[in-house]
């Protein structure tokens, strides 16, 4: 029964990793941009929720509702003012710029909020759990997991059922021909990064509610997210969800065997899957 419990805890943790990864997956899928600052932007989102909550005396869930449009705006501006200028045939400039952005965000947060660990105080719901037979499941992890599914569903709906999703896919396929259709790639990219940061803010809410955070933890979240995206297959949103779940489950089982093995087990699972499926589990057919 302990194994069933471990599996469920792992899946629920994987939901959080999928949330970390979804924004990264979206941005990579549309503009082939690997945003090395994604983890730090999630941490920035957590501080923003904390700041709004503290200043206005709001529960983090309510504060997040205010943070969401602000982060969308930040994503839009970031893409318009900075990232659109470096996107091109060469993949190196955007990598360097987002790496620099990562360092800037970490240091700005350190300056503003010190290196102290913080946590989002979500209230009594934090300790609540539901019991199914012999397995006990926390309410917050369940909400996190449900949010991950909902986010992937929404992103898929945008991607495959709306006019803007068509523009996303067309621009990703061939940005020159997309311009002949009247699509402005830079606007499409700005919208995509805005949406990615909305998802990052949702991830930030659950990250901050689940565990302590400080300005330095971004890169490790980026690593999990990156592994989830690659396991799933670049550009596949459902693949990203599966990738997140696999890393979560691997970490849970690693920790069950020996606590120190938790992080290592996730990375080992990542390497093993890449050995068997170098392009990930659900690669896009026409890449």
């Amino acid at each position, binding site marked *: 029964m302990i194994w069933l419990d471990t599996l469920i805890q792992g899946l629920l943790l994987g939901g959080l990793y999928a949330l970390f990864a979804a924004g990264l997956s979206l941005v990579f899928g549309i503009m082939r941009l690997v945003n090395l600052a994604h983890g730090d932007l999630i941490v920035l989102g957590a501080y923003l929720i904390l700041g709004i909550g503290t200043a206005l005396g709001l529960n983090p869930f309510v504060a997040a509702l205010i943070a969401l449009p602000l982060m969308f705006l930040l994503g839009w501006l970031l893409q318009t003012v900075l990232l659109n200028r470096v996107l091109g045939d060469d993949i190196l400039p955007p990598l360097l710029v987002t790496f620099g952005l990562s360092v800037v965000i970490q240091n700005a947060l350190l300056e503003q909020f010190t290196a102290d660990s913080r946590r989002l105080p979500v209230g009594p719901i934090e300790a609540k759990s539901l019991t199914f037979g012999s397995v006990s499941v926390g309410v917050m992890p369940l909400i996190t997991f449900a949010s991950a599914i909902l986010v992937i569903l929404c992103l898929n709906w945008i991607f495959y059922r709306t*006019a803007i999703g*068509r*523009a996303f*896919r*067309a621009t*990703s*396929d*061939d940005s*020159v*021909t*997309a*311009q*002949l*259709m*009247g*699509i*402005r790639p830079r606007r499409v990219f700005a919208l995509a990064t805005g949406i990615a940061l909305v998802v990052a803010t949702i991830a930030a809410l659950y990250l901050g509610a689940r565990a302590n955070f400080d300005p330095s933890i971004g890169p490790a979240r980026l690593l999990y997210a990156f592994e989830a995206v690659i396991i799933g297959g670049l550009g596949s949103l459902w693949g990203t969800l599966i990738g997140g779940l696999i890393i979560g489950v691997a970490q849970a089982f690693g920790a069950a065997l020996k606590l120190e093995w938790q992080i290592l087990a996730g990375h080992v699972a990542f390497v093993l899957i890449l050995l068997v499926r170098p392009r990930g589990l659900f690669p*896009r057919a*026409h890449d």
Partner: protein
Amino acid sequence: MSALLKVNDLTAHYGDFQALFGVDLALEQGETLAIIGANGAGKTTLMRAITGIARVTAGTVTLNGARIDPLSAPEILRAGIAMVPEGRKLFPSLSVEENLMIGAHARKGSGYWNMERVCKLFPVLAARRHQPSTSLSGGQQQMVSIGRALMSNPSVLLCDELSLGLAPVVIREIYAAFPTIRESGTSIVLVEQDIGQALKVADTVHCMMEGRMTLSGRPAELSREAIHDAYFGITQS
């Protein structure tokens, strides 16, 4: 009468290579104009320069008297020039129907062309609307590419090498749609290597060689020899 689309002394580059040397062109309302020429004559660069994909280094392009050469490609599409690019360039991630719908991405208001009329123009597409665009034959993909451009209800339709890589029977099928397109009020510029096809459908024919216009006239007025000289640049003895 002033021309609908006017290209004046246009110079453009393909990378570092100068591909156009002071090209002039005038398309009247309702006219079908063909540009013929060998590979590398600058026909595609001219199309790309008009649509804002290639950078214009000198000269002007006007549509209805308004300059469009400083505009970006999406703005030029909105101004009323749509292109069927060489090689069809369908979006592989999009279904047939989605490829057509994205042609109307920038459209405001209504016009003659819509999904229904495009499917009537190319009935074979109606049955394949929900298929991946990559599953179509080359000719069917060309039909989607034309339909996609029409969905924006352009005043000028540019077609780059429609017949490239297609069987003669398929080419005839595609060109059979052009009278309907003309009747919808769209003026057409065809870039063709297939001289016979160009002479058949066009009101005026222009020949390009090495980035310059070498011949212009009505098909009936042009002798085989004149076209041959303009196309290959050698005088027959």
